[in-house]
């Protein structure tokens, strides 16, 4: 018995060491299939990079002053097959409202819903929130298909590949499906609505930093979490451009926790000069800036997001910055698209919304327009003409 015991201990210890060993050298244990190439290459897609790079300079078509109805390089599709009278029921499978960006958009979407209910286009919207779980969202979509009595589906996928089969099932019902924000690997939806994308974000921000920094300068990249395509693409583009321009960039995952952000930046400042800060989302930007203040060094050149906490700190400190946007007003578009589809109007197959960063020149204008909004609000939320403005956003009234 004793020997058996020892053998077991040895085997287990071996397993543990093997496990730890794998983690220290990922190349040895690289997944079997050859589909997973090397790190950081996987998210980079030259064709998509070039497409989004070009889209940045295209003047969008559509109504002036209503960016949520504008589109870039659209290929329109006919929707006359869906044309019908009466108020329709929309079923919305939402990934989550677990971050300020999604919360702001969710509030906007509900205000847009009120307008469309009043105009008689939509009778009601039933929503199931997957709380960031792929499995839950699949079940949500299946529930809608069987029980929802839905006239149309709106889906904001939690992740790209995993949600594809469920979205396909929704399409098979023959009812119109609208996908927005993150995409899926099928084009069965009537329209897929999204801003230009992560590569454009990466190009805008990296070009700004490269223009304002010298070769050999150091940039800290603060990223929220790995594995989410819209975020990974931001970094994939920026990393490539930094590399080409000879900018030294180190990246960290922060979980958007300002405590971690401040610690990371402080550590970097303790090791040497930091000339620039790049972020893949704006929340937590204030903590990064305060780390420079507390260390008593000059402010960096910085890119954040159009989240108000960053915009306000940016103005207050006068640092050299840029606020890229992942157009929050896109949360208005899906319901408007549903209305257009049932009216038989043609909509873009891929509905690319404009995505224009906020620069120092137009910063004051946006800050003035959003006075009284909480720090977690987004400057380009696009709901100024909706009924609840400004109270529902100020009070964060979440249905």
């Amino acid at each position, binding site marked *: 018995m004793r020997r058996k015991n020892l053998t077991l201990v040895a085997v287990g210890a071996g397993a543990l060491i093997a496990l730890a060993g794998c983690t220290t050298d990922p190349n040895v244990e690289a997944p079997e299939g050859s589909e997973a190439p090397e790190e950081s290459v996987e998210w980079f897609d030259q064709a998509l990079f070039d497409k989004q790079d070009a889209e940045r300079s295209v003047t969008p078509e559509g109504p002036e002053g209503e960016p949520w109805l504008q589109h870039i390089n659209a290929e329109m599709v006919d929707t006359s097959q869906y044309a019908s009278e009466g108020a329709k029921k929309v079923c919305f499978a939402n990934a989550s409202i677990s971050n300020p960006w999604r919360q702001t958009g969710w509030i906007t979407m509900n205000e847009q819903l009120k307008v469309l209910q009043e105009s008689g286009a939509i009778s009601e919207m039933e929503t199931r929130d997957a709380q960031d779980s792929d499995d839950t969202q699949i079940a949500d979509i299946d529930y809608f298909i069987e029980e929802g009595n839905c006239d149309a589906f709106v889906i904001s996928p939690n992740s790209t590949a995993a949600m594809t089969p469920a979205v396909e099932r929704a399409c098979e019902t023959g009812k119109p499906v609208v996908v927005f924000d993150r995409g899926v690997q099928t084009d069965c939806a009537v329209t897929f609505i999204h801003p230009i994308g992560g590569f454009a974000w990466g190009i805008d921000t990296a070009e700004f930093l490269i223009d304002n920094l010298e070769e050999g300068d150091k940039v800290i990249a603060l990223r929220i979490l790995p594995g989410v395509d819209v975020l990974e693409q931001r970094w994939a583009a920026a990393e490539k451009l930094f590399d080409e321009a000879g900018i030294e960039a180190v990246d960290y995952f922060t979980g958007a926790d*300002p405590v971690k952000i401040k610690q990371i930046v402080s550590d970097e400042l303790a090791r040497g000069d930091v000339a620039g800060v790049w972020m893949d989302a704006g929340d937590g930007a*204030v903590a990064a800036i305060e780390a420079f203040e507390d260390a008593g060094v000059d402010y960096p050149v910085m890119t954040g997001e159009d989240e108000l906490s960053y915009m306000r700190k940016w103005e207050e400190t006068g640092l050299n910055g840029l606020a890229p946007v992942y157009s929050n007003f896109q949360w208005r578009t899906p319901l408007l698209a549903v209305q257009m589809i049932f009216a038989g109007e043609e909509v873009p197959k891929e509905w690319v919304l404009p995505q224009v960063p906020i620069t120092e020149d137009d910063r004051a204008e946006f800050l003035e327009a959003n006075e009284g909004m*909480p720090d977690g609000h987004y400057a380009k939320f696009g709901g100024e003409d909706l009924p609840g403005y400004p109270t529902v956003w100020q009070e*964060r009234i979440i249905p």
Partner: protein
Amino acid sequence: MSTTDATATRPAFGRRLARLGFTLISPRGAVFLLLALLLIAIMVLNPKFGDPGQLIRFIQRVAPVAIVAIGQYFVIVSGEFDLSMGSVVTAQVVIAGNLIGQDDSRSIPVLLFMLAFGAAVGLVNGLVTTLLRVPSFIVTLGMMLALLGAVFYWTGGAATGNPADSFREVGRGGIRDVPVVGIIPWSVLILIVLTLAAVWFARRPFGRMVIAVGDNVTTARYSGARVWWVKTSAFILSSLSATVAGVLLVGYAGVHPSVGNGYEFTAITAVVLGGVALGGGRGWVVAAVAGAFALEALFILLNFAEVPATMRDAVQGVIIIAAVAYSAVTFRAIRSGRTPETSPQPGEPSDLGEDRAALAPQTRTPNGARTTNGGSDAT
């Protein structure tokens, strides 16, 4: 205390050295050895870290974690768990941001409210655990979910903004222009005061009672302890420490719903690294604080050693297991040569029940429900 027997027969000149050595390799002292090794490794990689100014900033950074570890120490040593600490930190951070806003005059009333709120959370945790006999793991798990959900529901997820700078000064500022170190952050002073208070408290009869309750609830009860109150007090201390940590963190970094995320596991890990036994009855509060320092030092080392961000979890996992295994193995080795530290029943075989993973309170009640039913309820 764990070394006196072993060193009693040694010659006097070597005695002090031997004693130090024994303390360092004993489970109680191992965390200090680990901490020293980590700090040396950091300084080798980055000599600048040894500057007094950098060291004091390191202590400032650890302060909230160490304070949370002090609170968790009292709960763990009393034989329970507190998984709600992270949520309490988050809740307090958001409360500070939303209730104080930019109005300096509200700082003190809101601070008092936060302390009362923290105490109330601890009271609920403690009473449900002791009076309703729900395992604390479950009570505080429920509290974790409910509190976080309620805070997000109240604020709509996004906080209004950072509280007034005067309130944030506690976590962010300090005594400036001090020679050598430059600045002594308030949070360092608060950590020192709270550590001393915890040491003092642990030596008071009440502090001993907490350990006695964690070691053996029955003997503690028969020796006159009001078990429910002792445990509830531990939970209140825990929630209050999370409140203080929240005040420091909102100063240090500002308001965000992810502040405090994962603090419960960080605190438990720190306490266990400090050689405190999960299940209660054994542990030293200073070692728990040292555990927090060691854990943070580890994070910094991984950073300076340029371990890729994605692999840090794995390294952390290996080191935690190794440290606790070391502590468990040495504890057995030391104890096998002497009588147990706190033996309620002298003469009993000393390794009875030594390695039970004690997680729930109801089995420590005198009714013996488990012992009389063991295994028979399977069907």
